């Protein structure tokens, strides 16, 4: 399948909905928890067992994004979206068969392994294409798509729950729900496959600055540069800090105000978690778009520096004011989302558009690392504090200090990012215009 080239008159505003149709679908992964209790009772599984399809799916997301990125660049976005559609949808259909026949391994293999490949290829499928269509606003363009990944869970969570209510939570009901998910997501993602187009030639879209071509770095060379690994550290630290809040949000707000005159109920805590999801999504589009105006390095200074300050405020004053606690947590989560959404544009600034999707795929291993590191730190520390007889907000003091430390490490790594040395450039792509772009976008490092 050759990359679909846009015909004359094609609008670049058709590309973001194409990307969104894929990201809104695969974002369902974060709503897997809806299926956990029914699966546990229908198939007699433990909590750890019922989490396996999701965990394998996230591992496969990281692996397929890292190893499939170059293929995605070569075959183009339509091929990638087709693979994502087939894998993600087949994953549900295999799971339906697994639930109907009470073969749980088939659900793990289907949703986790096959569907997980769809997650990884689907996640990176539109990135490079969006950046090529919106060279003047790469942060906004990738922000729209990556916001979709957050939005996918918002849609799937109530939708799946309603479906289980209608079909029942026995194995037949679960199988039927998986079947409907598989078919619906296939139809929904088809819009992306049909609509996505690559620009006719390398260059800017309407109204964009004239210069987008310039020094380009291949994915293979990029991973040999310090810039790639510095960004890897930046993303790992930013995501770990966000997960630090996300993982324990409900118990955290309850514990912080347990000994006050206005304790937080379980219902209110659930509302707090929902509000954090909104901040995560808003940060993806809002901060990523802002990065087009103030530059990528500066926006990560905000994510990491102000993020550390917000954690410090929670640690020092969080239990004295509920609005302050909520506000700081919302800002941290908006930075968490912003960090995800801005990184493709940061990669484009450093390595060019040549294989930015593949480089992004390799960088997502930072996400997998943070996904393990964040919950591990927060849960381990909270357990130790509980064992030591602490309660209330003091359960989280050490975790919060660790998060501040991680953000400082990320801040320093971001400060060390410099333009890539010309020896890593693809021959013949150095132009004076690109050098000018570099100076404009990263004046502090020129």
């Amino acid at each position, binding site marked *: 399948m050759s990359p679909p080239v*846009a*015909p*004359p*008159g*094609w*609008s*670049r*505003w*058709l590309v973001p*909905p*194409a990307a*969104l*149709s894929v990201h*809104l679908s695969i974002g369902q992964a974060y709503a897997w928890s809806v299926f956990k209790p029914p699966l546990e009772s229908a198939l007699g599984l433990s909590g750890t067992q019922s989490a396996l399809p999701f965990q394998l799916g996230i591992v496969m997301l990281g692996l397929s994004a890292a190893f499939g990125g170059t293929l995605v660049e070569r075959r183009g976005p339509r091929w990638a979206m087709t693979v994502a559609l087939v894998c993600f949808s087949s994953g549900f259909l295999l799971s339906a068969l697994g639930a109907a026949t009470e073969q749980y391994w088939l659900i793990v293999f289907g949703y986790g392994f096959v569907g997980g490949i769809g997650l990884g290829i689907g996640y990176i499928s539109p990135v490079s294409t969006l950046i090529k*269509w919106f060279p003047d606003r790469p942060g906004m363009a990738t922000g729209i798509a990556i916001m*979709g990944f957050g*939005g996918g869970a*918002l*849609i799937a*969570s*109530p*939708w799946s729950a309603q479906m289980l209510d209608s079909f029942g939570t026995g194995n037949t009901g679960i199988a039927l729900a998986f079947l409907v998910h598989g078919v619906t997501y296939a139809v*929904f993602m088809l*819009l992306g496959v049909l*609509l996505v187009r690559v*620009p*006719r*030639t*390398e*260059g*800017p*879209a*309407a*109204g*964009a600055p004239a210069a987008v071509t310039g020094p380009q770095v291949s994915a293979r060379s990029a991973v040999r540069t310090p810039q790639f690994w510095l960004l890897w550290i930046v993303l790992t630290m930013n995501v770990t800090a966000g997960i630090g809040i996300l993982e324990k949000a409900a118990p955290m707000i309850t514990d912080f105000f347990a000994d006050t005159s206005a304790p937080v*109920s*379980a*219902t*209110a*805590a*659930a*509302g*707090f978690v*929902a*509000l954090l*999801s*909104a901040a995560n999504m808003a940060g993806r589009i809002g901060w990523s778009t802002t990065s087009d105006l103030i530059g990528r390095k500066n926006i990560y200074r905000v994510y990491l520096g102000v993020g550390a300050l917000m954690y410090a405020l929670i640690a020092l004053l969080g239990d004295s004011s509920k609005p302050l606690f*909520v506000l700081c947590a919302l800002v941290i989560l908006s930075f968490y989302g912003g960090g995800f959404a801005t990184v493709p544009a940061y990669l484009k600034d450093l390595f060019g558009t040549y294989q930015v999707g593949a480089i992004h795929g390799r960088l997502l291993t930072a996400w997998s690392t943070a996904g393990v590191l964040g919950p591990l730190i927060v849960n381990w520390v909270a357990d130790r504090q509980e064992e030591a007889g602490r309660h209330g907000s003091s359960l989280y003091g050490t975790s919060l200090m660790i998060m501040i430390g991680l953000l400082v490490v990320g801040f320093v790594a971001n400060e060390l990012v410099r333009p890539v040395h010309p020896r890593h450039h693809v021959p013949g792509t150095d132009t004076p215009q690109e050098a000018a772009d570099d100076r404009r976008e990263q004046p502090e490092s020129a």
Partner: protein
Amino acid sequence: MTGENSQSPPSPGRRGLITFAWLWVGVPLGYGLYELVRKATQLFTG
């Protein structure tokens, strides 16, 4: 490149396609956001 693709205003057919495409993704997203807001208000009422 895209000058040819997108500098000229989209034809009425394309405008319809753009509207359809954004509605295709916007309607489910709107539903998700509505459910989210409903849940988030529990922080202040629950």
